[in-house]
């Protein structure tokens, strides 16, 4: 029974998606249903008790479905975000003639995203992951602008590379495990003689989705160009798929892998900082948010790294991870959707004010200001760090807050950009339709994150965030960040000028790479590709040539003419006769 419920979770968006190609009334109905497609998933995310894993032994290579504590939180996040984004998109694309196209990919992507969360075996996970990845391409390039197409190209290339890594890792993991079930996979990886290779592949493969440096290059390109609703789910929910992949399949918490842990922590920290720094140089608020996501994912990855290096820490760290993911997902979703709402405000001051206030609230939350979801999530996150490997906590203890300072500044710039450049850009008259889902999300984000640990009976209580020590820890980076912002604001107010003269183009390290690739790869040739000579074809051609050339002239070949001569034939007759006789005699 449960199995069919899980399948229903996937079948619902899928069915709606495949109503679209039929066109006409069915298509319109499908678009109306789009926001509700994730409702079954949302319902399935609510039970407090996780049920046993259900196996569909006829599906794929034997699929299993279910959720554990961590993934249920992901499911909650994902379902919520998709639902909100669905409502939002319904209005955002109201005037879009190609809304059906958006809806189709939106729903398919949703199916994939939900599927990978409820999948408990690597094949189903991978299948869903692939569905999500490839469908999301349609979202990325939806606008068909040159930027979008370029972003799509980078996105798909990176995605394919990621799939390659995953496939490699999966083969080896599944072989070693002798099963595709997640739990066996984790053991299998450890048992394998190539465990390092597997871990490397999985890290890289999922890392691409999670925006791990240096595999993040697609992210700042793709997230901003997608329609806002899509950006929200890309940055809020789908980016977590990579994270979930790590959590589900890497043997985190089962064995100490300090080497991998160190590597990941270094990468994550680089991500956390560079995301902020590069984000600061962006003019486009969505790009800025994308970089912020890279940075935030860096935070989470740090904890994963801790788990990798120190299995003991994982029990706590995993919860921190999940909570932080929940927080970040909802908040980032709200931020992205907010950008779209800001565009729609028109010249209405009230609307603008509302949007700015809403955005500021969630921005502060993202920065981790005390009493916000961010503060709680960060506290939960740090719990893990403290029991992490020796020596790490010292560094992380002050590096993470420093990053938080950066986030604060970044969010400051975001709000500033919105305020100065983005408000009232366009006027589609869909303000209300977009604003309501957004406000709901903003409104829900806090209670969901606060209540989740309570509801799911996690080992972390929201109250922790209100402990004085933690309160201070979460306060001072925000204060410093605020101070910096104040200084900057004061500077600008005094002499209006560009504070950050540097502009790092979105995609950062990709740019030189693209340049280099353009040098190497010749442009697409219009002429026929030269083919190496084919000896057999040449042989058949020359044989045909022999035929063709002798067809028009009526001359027999010299050889044939020669044989027809009587004296030649006679001599041959005589010779052969002689030789035959001699051979007969000579034995």
């Amino acid at each position, binding site marked *: 029974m449960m199995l069919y419920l899980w399948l229903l979770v996937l079948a619902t968006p899928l069915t709606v998606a495949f109503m679209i190609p039929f066109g006409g009334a069915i298509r319109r109905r499908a678009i109306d249903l789009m926001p509700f497609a994730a409702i079954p998933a949302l319902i399935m995310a609510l039970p407090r008790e996780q049920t046993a894993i259900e196996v569909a032994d006829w599906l794929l290579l034997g699929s299993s479905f279910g959720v554990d504590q961590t993934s249920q939180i992901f499911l909650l996040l994902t379902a919520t975000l998709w639902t909100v984004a669905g409502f939002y998109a319904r209005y955002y694309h109201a005037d879009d003639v190609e809304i059906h196209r958006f809806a189709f990919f939106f729903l398919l992507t949703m199916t994939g995203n939900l599927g990978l969360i409820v999948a408990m075996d690597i094949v189903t996970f991978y299948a869903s992951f692939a569905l999500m990845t490839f469908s999301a391409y349609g979202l990325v390039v939806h606008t068909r602008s040159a930027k979008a197409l370029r972003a799509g190209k980078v996105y798909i290339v990176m995605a394919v590379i990621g799939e390659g890594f995953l496939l490699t890792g999966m083969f080896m993991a599944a072989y070693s495990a002798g099963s595709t079930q997640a739990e066996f996979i984790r053991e299998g990886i450890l048992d394998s003689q190539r465990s390092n290779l597997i871990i490397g592949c999985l890290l890289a493969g999922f890392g691409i989705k999670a925006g791990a440096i240096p595999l993040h290059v697609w992210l700042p390109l793709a997230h901003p160009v997608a329609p806002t609703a899509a950006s929200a789910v890309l940055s809020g929910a789908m980016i977590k798929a990579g994270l979930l992949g790590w959590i589900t399949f890497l043997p985190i918490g089962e064995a100490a892998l300090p080497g991998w842990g160190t590597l990941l922590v270094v990468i994550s920290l680089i991500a956390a900082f560079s995301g902020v720094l590069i984000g600061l140089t962006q003019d486009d608020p969505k790009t800025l948010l994308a970089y912020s996501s890279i940075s935030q994912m860096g935070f989470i990855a740090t904890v994963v790294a801790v788990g990798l290096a120190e299995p003991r820490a994982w029990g706590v760290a995993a919860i921190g991870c999940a909570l932080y993911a929940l927080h970040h997902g909802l908040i980032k979703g709200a931020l992205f959707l907010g950008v779209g709402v800001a565009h729609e405000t028109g010249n209405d001051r009230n609307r603008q004010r509302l949007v700015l206030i809403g955005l500021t609230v969630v921005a502060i939350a993202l920065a981790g200001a005390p009493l916000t979801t961010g503060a709680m999530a960060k506290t939960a996150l740090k719990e893990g760090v403290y029991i992490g490997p020796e020596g790490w906590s010292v560094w992380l203890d002050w590096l993470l807050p420093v990053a938080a300072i950066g986030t604060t500044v970044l969010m400051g710039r975001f709000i500033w950009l919105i305020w100065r450049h983005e408000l009232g850009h366009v006027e589609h008259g869909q303000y209300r339709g977009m604003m309501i889902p957004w406000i709901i999300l903003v409104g829900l984000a806090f209670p969901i994150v606060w209540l989740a640990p309570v509801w799911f009976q996690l080992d972390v209580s929201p109250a922790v965030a209100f402990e004085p020590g933690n309160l201070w820890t979460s306060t001072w980076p925000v204060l410093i960040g605020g101070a910096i912002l104040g200084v900057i604001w004061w500077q600008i107010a005094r002499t209006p000028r560009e504070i950050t003269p540097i502009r790092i183009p979105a995609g950062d390290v990709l740019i030189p790479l693209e340049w280099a690739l353009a040098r190497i790869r010749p442009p697409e040739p219009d002429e026929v590709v030269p083919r190496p000579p084919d000896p057999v074809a040449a042989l058949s051609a020359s044989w045909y040539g022999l035929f063709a050339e002798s067809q028009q002239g*009526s001359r*027999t070949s010299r050889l044939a*003419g020669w044989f*027809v001569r*009587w*004296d030649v034939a*006679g001599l041959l007759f*005589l010779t052969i006769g002689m030789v035959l006789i001699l051979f007969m005699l000579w034995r």
Partner: protein
Amino acid sequence: MSEFLIYGLAAAALFAICLHGIITRTHILRKILALNMMGSAVFLLLITIAERNQVDGVADPVPHAMVLTGIVVAVSATAFALALARRYHAQTGHTELHDEDGST
């Protein structure tokens, strides 16, 4: 040198000479004649063998019969060849077999 050898070697020589004629002479008539005489060479050999095989003065009749049959066969073939040659000559004026005629 026995009688057998004389005739036998003569037959051999005749055969070889006729073969030479067939090869080197282009006139059809000569070829036909050479062939015919080639047959004669064989018949000569057969007769010689018949003589060699004689018992009580009776020569071996089987080679004799073979010769008689062979002659008729050879005559038939010769005559037919001559008829053809004449026809050929009448049609083309040639007295030799022109090589291209048949092969184009």
